[in-house]
């Protein structure tokens, strides 16, 4: 009360107004670098083509295990069980010399994150899982799976309020799809 009396009504209103402005500033600036529009949108895209390796029995076993996991997940009605199956598949060790595993892992991760996002509190977990896999510093295969995973990442980021990550991910997905179309037209 002493403060209110000392500042007077105009002073209190001024403080409230400035606090509000500062709160808005909090939103736009410091997280600023992560959150605000043009300054922090990272749409860098590094890509590589998938060059099939020499087939091996271990490679085939891995691909079949992933196919089985997807089929099992399709049969699961509960999101928790589906997520568990997909998580186990993602944890499967990848045999050496199997570049084909890269798009499959991206598909597994995208599907797992879609499933996690259906559950309460799942969006941050899904973001933690997918964002490092799609870091702009990392090269992504020119493949449908990259585009899909980036779209999923964009959707998760949008749901979490990270407009910059969302916009950057969507932009990168569109660029991957553009590269894919160019390849198809050759």
């Amino acid at each position, binding site marked *: 009360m002493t403060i209110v009396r000392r*500042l007077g009504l105009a*002073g209190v209103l001024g403080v409230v107004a400035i606090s509000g402005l500062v709160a*808005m500033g909090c939103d736009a600036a410091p997280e600023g670098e992560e959150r605000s529009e043009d300054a922090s949108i990272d749409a860098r895209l590094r890509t590589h083509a998938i060059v099939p390796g020499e087939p091996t029995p271990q*490679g085939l076993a891995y691909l079949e295990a992933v196919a089985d996991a*997807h089929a099992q997940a399709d049969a699961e009605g509960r999101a928790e069980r589906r997520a568990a199956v997909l998580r186990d598949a993602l944890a499967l060790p990848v045999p050496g010399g199997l570049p084909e595993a890269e798009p499959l892992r991206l598909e597994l991760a995208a599907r797992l994150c879609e499933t996690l996002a259906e559950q309460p509190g799942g969006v941050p977990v899904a973001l933690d899982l997918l964002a490092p896999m799609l870091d702009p510093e990392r090269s992504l295969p020119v493949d449908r799976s990259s585009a899909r995973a980036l*779209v999923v990442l*964009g959707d998760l980021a*949008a749901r979490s309020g990270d407009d910059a990550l969302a916009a950057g991910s*969507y932009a990168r997905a569109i660029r991957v799809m553009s590269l894919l179309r160019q390849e198809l037209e050759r």
Partner: protein
Amino acid sequence: MTRSRHDQPSRPRPSPHGGSDEAERARIRAELAALGEPDADDDDDDRHVGAVTALFGVAHGDDAIGALELSELERRRVWRRIDERRSARPSAPRRATWIGIAAAAALVLVPVFAPEVADRSSDPGARAAREALGEQARRTLGHLPGDQDAERARGMADDYAARLRGTPNGGDR
């Protein structure tokens, strides 16, 4: 406005209580001493009288000044009250300090108590642009040829198996 009045040489006006100026001043000094207030020198007194006269002029119009008859002690008391009220208000630097403290508190407390504020207050234009970009990305992905998930994995496994069968070690499995 008040400046011009301050600049005017103020002369002690005849007291409504009667008596000479010197007697009046002596009475004022005695009353001030009884109240425990310091005695005013002539300059201060003149300034107070000028200021109070100016204030009455503002409040009542210049015509009212002549009709007002306050003793100098009364004028001093009026002026002292004005001084007290004025000093009770925070100075500009003090107000700036309080505003700074409030701003700092907002910086700390808003993200703690309202993390969702960031989402609510983001620029609608940026949000609309992001949504349009997302819509375009999803639509393009939907039109992209090729399977995904189980169909894609099964197709890749079948192609891989065919390639494996065509290699010298393909029969090991």
